[in-house]
């Protein structure tokens, strides 16, 4: 597999001069101040910063979940640039359905469904594929994640690390262009956390996704391609640590 890191010159997602404030009057607080950020295909980008620095806000705006006060989010789609926040709500929903995957700190798996069904649901409800096709693709993904033997297990029968891997499978099974991960390792021990970050890196390097990971966890740094720091609504790219 050819590594994608740095191999593409044009970004697949650009956040341009993004501004977002919360509150009114004297309580008004800027969460993002003229933030510009590019995500490239094949790159795992880490976004760090103290609590309340606006990391989750930036992730939400870039992923089409939260509208910025000003600025643009431009996404490359079939040779065109889509302004995500000028699309209608329905078009933006379609955009997310087609292009984006999410992983959150909580695994948010349906307690009643097996690992395989969690993935099937996304394909059947999102892409209208048949159950047999959904099953084939779900099993393929679970196999890549080393979870095929657990495919009939429900969340209560899985460990924390396994649950997060199922959640990653659910995000990856539709082959997204962009992956957004919010604190994906914070509920896991480092052994499982490392597996998760490796999977995110594989999603970028092997599948060509643009992956943005928001985290407090410095142990992730050696695995990422680009590292941003956000503080008080201002974004700054920082050098990656050198050496193993």
């Amino acid at each position, binding site marked *: 597999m050819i590594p994608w890191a740095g191999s593409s010159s044009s970004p697949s997602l650009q956040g341009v001069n993004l501004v977002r404030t919360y509150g009114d009057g004297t309580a008004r607080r800027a969460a993002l101040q003229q933030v510009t950020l590019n995500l490239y295909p094949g790159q795992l980008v880490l976004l760090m910063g103290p609590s309340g620095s606006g990391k989750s806000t930036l992730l939400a705006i870039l992923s089409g979940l939260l509208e910025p006060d000003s600025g643009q989010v431009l996404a490359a789609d079939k040779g065109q640039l889509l302004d995500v926040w000028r699309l209608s709500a329905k078009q933006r929903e379609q955009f997310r359905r087609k292009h984006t995957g999410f992983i959150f700190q909580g695994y948010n798996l349906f307690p009643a*469904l097996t690992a395989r069904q969690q993935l099937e649901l996304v394909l059947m409800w999102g892409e209208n594929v048949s159950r047999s096709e959904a099953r084939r693709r779900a099993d393929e993904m679970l196999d890549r994640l080393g979870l095929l033997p657990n495919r009939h297990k429900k969340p209560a029968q899985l460990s924390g690390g396994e649950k997060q891997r199922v959640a990653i499978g659910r995000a990856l099974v539709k082959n997204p262009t962009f992956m957004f991960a919010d604190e994906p390792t914070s509920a896991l021990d480092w052994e499982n956390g490392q597996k998760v970050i490796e999977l995110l890196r594989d999603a970028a390097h092997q599948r060509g996704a643009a992956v943005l990971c928001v985290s407090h966890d410095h142990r992730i740094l050696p695995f990422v391609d680009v590292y941003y720091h956000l503080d008080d609504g201002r974004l700054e790219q920082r050098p990656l640590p050198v050496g193993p």
Partner: protein
Amino acid sequence: MSIALQTLWHERSRYAAGVLAVAFSAVLIALQCGLLLGLFKITSIPIDHTTADLWIGSTKVQSVDLGKPIPMSYLSRISGIAGVTSVELYIANFANFAKPSGGTELCFILGSNTDRGAAGAATVLSPEQLDALTMPYSIIVDESDLKRLGFLDNPDGKVKINGKEVKLVGTVKGLKSLAAPWVFCSLYTARQLLNLIVPSDHVTYLLARCESPERAKAIAAELRDKYGSDMGTYTAAEFSYNSREYWLLRTKAGIAIGYAALLGLLVGAVITAQTLYSATIANAKEFAILLALGIPRWRISSMVMMQSFWVGVIGVALAYPTCLALRSGAAQVGADVDLRWEVLVGTAAVTISMALISGLFALRSVRTIEPMSLLR
């Protein structure tokens, strides 16, 4: 198994309240309707326990106990019609019953031909009882009315109907009464007892037997066409139905039952809606992920609706055996609960619709789900 049903089963303790609420509503509706139908069957006993195909009486008779006297000469209008195999006279009316123990009671006289197999003779009367009724002024009543008519208190006392002494010659079972005890007697006896109400050249009904029930319908239509202005013709089935419907509406019992059923439905609907609402809220984060992934909200709404449908179906499935058990319990104490298929199907339709409407109310929980909640 569908995802909706799988979730329902997995979280069955969460959904139990909704399922039980639906079952409760269904039992309440089915039993109330069944009891009412069972009760008002009593009003059509003279029709349902005789073998006439056609009842011919005065015009617009709403119930069997409301027929006005008609001239006996109408007999000639009927006996000549092809397909009519026999016609009999029948006298029926309310009368004043002086109890052997003292006091009076209203009763309803049913005077028919006492020949074996006569169209107007109640089918429960044995040949011996029919013979006994040929004696003038002999009567038979249902054993459930013996106490009401004072026979138990003073078995040897004098019994008078409309001032004329009568003699109890037997009892029957299963012909209970509502407003006035049924008194079975011969046509002759009835005429003597009711001579002030039914003139000697009049009867209350003419009972006809026909070649077949289909033929009876056609003859009824023919007679209505020809003599509809002064003579009413009813098939046994429609006369029976009309009698029950009349009393159901007249007594407003239907309204009372309707309110009770409505109350049951409302309670069921509120609990079901609340159950579905909280169950959806409990899965809000899982649904929020799906919304973030771009899955349309209607997919989640339709899953909630599917769940409400299944809550309804399972509730009804639990209600049916409960109803049957309660019916046999009621039968033990002598109450007839008529759980005919219309009642069971109607109950299922109403309660499953209720569950679906509850599902619609629970959909507001889906509207509150926002993917942004996962990032806060």
